[in-house]
């Protein structure tokens, strides 16, 4: 963008209301104090009572007792969806595209979920409730008829918004479990790259904030793919193809990752990067230790919280959705711990504020 770029000046004309709204929503995100109260609850009824005093208000008031975790999960998700749909319905021009980009990741998840389910001979009616409501689109449910990726693309996805991400993984091979993982990651890679480039094209504060967050997302995927690939039949060349080519690891880190054979070598790659070294330090699966996954989540939460520090940019919308999602995960985790009387691990949620 040019030197005399005053995108911020007009920002509020189109997006001011929604940004304000989102910041308001963000103020409703549960804080440490709330989580402390939640972890003290003895039953889900207590949890409901406490959530009533937060911005969630009476969202469980119309549910008959006894409450189940599944119901809470549904309601939490519903709230996020309602908020997101409101934003999307009022969004204008670029913001609408941006919000659609957020939706695409859920679409990818849903498609993969459905294909895997069909491969395992599950009924469509059983799979549908598991799909994320943000990622539902018209042709989604017909993916079950596809036998190969080419089929999938030509018959169904060609006029869905996911089509551009799909061009890398078209092949005549039949779908099987390994294949699907590859498809998922290829899709994700294409999606992340497209989203990253779009944000970069936006310029200004949006690029600044979003490239940081999406870059991290890309790097996290690269790490996770590498670690998960050990002991599978995935070849190193194929693996390297799955790495999203954005973020801090690209290009040197990715080349090294492509050569990695075990967890230690992955860790060595991470040593070169200050942010990631911290994450790999002191992780483990023992009691009191945090898993690498949790560390990644924590880092993500910090980045998303920081994104609210900047104004006149789209990052707040992305961050809000991600924070709400994390909050849902936290509440569900706590509810599960309460419901299963498994209190020792109740504190392993990821606090946001």
């Amino acid at each position, binding site marked *: 963008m040019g030197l005399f770029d005053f995108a911020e000046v007009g920002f509020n004309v189109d997006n001011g209301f929604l940004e304000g709204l989102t910041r308001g929503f963000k103020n409703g995100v549960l804080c440490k104090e709330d989580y402390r109260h939640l972890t003290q609850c*003895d039953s889900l009824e207590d949890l409901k*009572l406490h959530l009533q005093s937060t911005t969630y208000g009476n969202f469980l*008031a*119309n549910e*008959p007792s006894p409450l189940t975790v599944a119901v809470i999960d549904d309601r939490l998700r519903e709230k996020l969806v309602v908020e997101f749909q409101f934003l999307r319905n009022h969004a204008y021009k670029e913001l609408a595209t941006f919000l659609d980009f957020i939706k695409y990741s859920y679409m990818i998840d849903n498609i993969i979920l459905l294909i895997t389910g069909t491969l395992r001979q599950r009924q469509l009616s059983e799979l549908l409730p598991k799909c994320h409501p943000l990622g539902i689109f018209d042709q989604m*449910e*017909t*993916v079950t008829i596809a036998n190969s990726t080419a089929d999938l693309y*030509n018959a169904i996805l060609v006029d869905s918004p996911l089509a551009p991400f799909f061009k890398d993984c078209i092949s005549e091979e039949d779908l099987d479990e390994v294949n699907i993982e590859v498809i998922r990651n290829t899709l994700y890679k294409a999606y992340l790259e497209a989203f990253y480039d779009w944000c970069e094209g936006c310029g200004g504060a949006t690029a600044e904030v979003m490239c940081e967050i999406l870059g991290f997302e890309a790097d996290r995927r690269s790490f996770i793919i590498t670690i998960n690939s050990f002991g599978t039949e995935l070849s190193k060349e194929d693996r390297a193809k799955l790495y999203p080519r954005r973020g801090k690891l690209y290009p040197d880190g990715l080349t090294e990752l492509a050569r990695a054979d075990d967890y230690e070598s992955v860790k060595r790659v991470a040593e070169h990067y200050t942010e990631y070294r911290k994450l790999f330090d002191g992780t483990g699966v023992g009691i009191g230790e945090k898993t690498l996954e949790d560390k990644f989540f924590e880092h993500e939460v910090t980045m998303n919280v920081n994104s609210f520090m900047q104004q006149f940019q789209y990052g707040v919308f992305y961050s809000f959705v991600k924070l709400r999602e994390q909050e849902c995960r936290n509440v569900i985790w706590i509810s599960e711990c309460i419901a299963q009387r498994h209190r020792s691990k109740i504190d392993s949620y990821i606090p946001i504020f």
Partner: protein
Amino acid sequence: MGSLFRSEQMCLAQLYLQSEAAFACVSKLGELGLVSFTDLNPNVNAFQRKFVNDVRRCDEMERKLRFLERELKKDQIGVYDNGDNPPAPAPREMIELEAKFEKLENDMKEINTNQEALKKNFLELTEMKQILMKAQHFFEETLPFNDDDTQGGASEYARLLDEQPESKLGFVAGVILRSKLPSFERVLWRACRGNVFLRHAEIEMALEDPVTGDVVNKSVFIIFFQGDQLRNRVQKICEGLHATLYPCPDTSNERREIAIGVMTRIEDLQAVLNQTEDHRHLVLTQVALNIRVWFIKVRKIKAIYHTLNLFNVNIAEKCLIAQCWCPTNDLGKIQDALRYGTEVSGSSVASILQQVTTEEQPPTYNRTNMFTESFQGIIDAFGVSTYQEVNPAPFTIITFPFLFAVMFGDFGHGLLMLVFGLVLVIREKFYLAQKSADSEIWDMIFGGRYMILFMGFFSMYTGFLYNECFSRSFNVFGSSWNVSAMNFDAVTLGNASALDLDPVTPGVYRGYPDNYINGSGYPYPYGMDPIWQSAENKITFQNSYKMKSSIVLGFAQMLFGLTLALYNHIYFKDRLSIICEWIPQMIFIWCIVGYLCVIILFKWITWKDPASAPSLLIGLINMFMFTAPSKADGTFLYTGQSTVQIFVVLMIVFCLPWMLLAKPAVIYYRRRQKANRYAPLKSDSSTTRGLENPNFAEDVGKSQRNYNLAGGEMADDVPIIEQDQLDVESNSIQQTEPDPDEKDFSEIMILQIIHTIEFSLNCISHTASYLRLWALSLAHSELSEVLWTMVMHIGLSMAPPAGPIVTYAVFWFFAVLTVGILLVMEGLSAFLHALRLHWVEFQSKFYKGQGYAFLPFSFESIIQGRVDE
């Protein structure tokens, strides 16, 4: 003093309620709505409180009621409202209610499931019928060969059949949402590579979705294909897009037979459906009769348990301890309620109400009725008055509409507003009963109906004085100006468009009584002489008049505010502030604004010769420059003026240090004395209130905050503190008296500086601010005049026959603009300015507004949803 003048005297009381009597007592207090309970367990989580389970039961009951309410809404059955207000049922009745709701909910759910199943069935059959009908149609026009294979026909499908004689064309038929049809078609074509043939037709009638009850539009489709693989594929796509498939036989005879069967089944089903509907309706009508009462009952119980959760539980003595604020005057009523509650519950031990002394500032409670409510609302919107300070609301009742009217003065506009207000007031009961109109704007207008009435009335009064009615004047008594006395000749009269009337010429102005020069009669008996309406210099004349009267009115109001400050000082026994603040303020304002008002009045009353009228503005400026007034520059008013004015200016200058330094000096002096007196103690005692300890105020605050907690425990140990009512009273006075020891000296000094600067500057700026009375009034009269001359005048000045017609047409335009611009917009702007004059110019003289409102625990407000428990 009446209760309106100051807020109600409040006292903090502790209630000792027997566990079994607590529910009944709180229920009685809730009906009474005179006490506000404080939370004695602020550190306990919501779900760890004692009665949390009961609250939960109430939540559950409320949920069931809400479910029933939704069902009522779905069937559009109105809720029966007979205005009953049942008392909160006893706890044992709660079980009954619970059982009743449980049964109703289950009944309702069962009916719903049945109905849903039936409706689903019905929907399927209807769709089936549609398919059979449409399929018949499709086959008739496209597939003659299907009935008669041997003919081979001309249709392309038959030719297709010919090419591959061994395979047979299969087909499926079904129904799909009309909105999904395009994407269905696309997917089908792509997935089957164009090897299927789709025909579809819209179902004309709208179908009802059995689950959601929404009305949906659907289409019938029929797909032809070849081979089993394609059949699988097609079926999967149908499943994926939520299309329902129905079996459809090949031959038309079979189809006809099935169709007949379907028809009879539909008829049967319709009968059953109607019966279910009737049953449902019966149950719901019963519910509709009672649901309102149930809601009230449950909400009351819930509110009681919520309140009980605020109490301290004393397990040893089996009693609950509550702490509450209540008006001292109503202690008798509260005692009665407690006694009654105890009796109802059959408890043997009486409930005890015990007054407690406290350092906390009591809440502010101003009793209002329908009339005073809106005026009190205006005051509270600025800030709830500090406990027991003078409440400006009663004065606002008159001053607010009056100041509004000064800006809005027009007889006609005032009349319209008065009529509007009257309609609202007279039909008050009707509108109050209509709670359904949940519009915020309407609530605001309706809430201020008495204010509108008064504003209308006062506007008529000022309009009368301004002699303006839709910008026209009434000439009731005849003008006191006489043109013929000027002795113009016919030529002058005939040619001139405007003529000068010289009041000095004898007989022209009859306004002066006989003993005055040129006096020959009396001025117009009230307000403006109607002749000004046609005068060219009307605005100049009125400006001078309105400008000056604005300043006089403003001074009067500010003076009144300052007088109220005196009442506050006397009431709080603050002699220091009277001597060191109030007296110099009074002198200051009299010298600076009061003197101006005096000379304005002086000039109005005594000046007779228009040619040599003095200029007050220049005079005022000269006064501060110490220039002696002289006739030459038109500043001379009376003999000895120079001496008086020098004295006035000197007084102003003298008052400044008085206001600024006297109070801090006295406080400083007192403190030094006190410090000297306690000096020997200071070294060894930590209890001394050290002047140097700036944290002291904070400590006091902390101990006050902890008081709530300590209150409960203290009551456990100390049985009953003997406390006279008088003591409480004196205590509250002592406590509200500003204790200078609490603040750091530099802070006092800074505050004093700010106050002094603020007051002295405000005396001038606020006076100037009152000029808005003139400005708005000018704007209003000009606007209405423009509206008259530009709109109404056009019609009225035309000759018949066009004149009356145009007048009729133009009148509506005039009427709409009058209401829209002059009444609504101008009214709002005058309202805002009157509001500002009260909040800023008037109240800044005496009003602190640092109190907090008394929010009593009252069922009435809880049921109306005003308080969220």
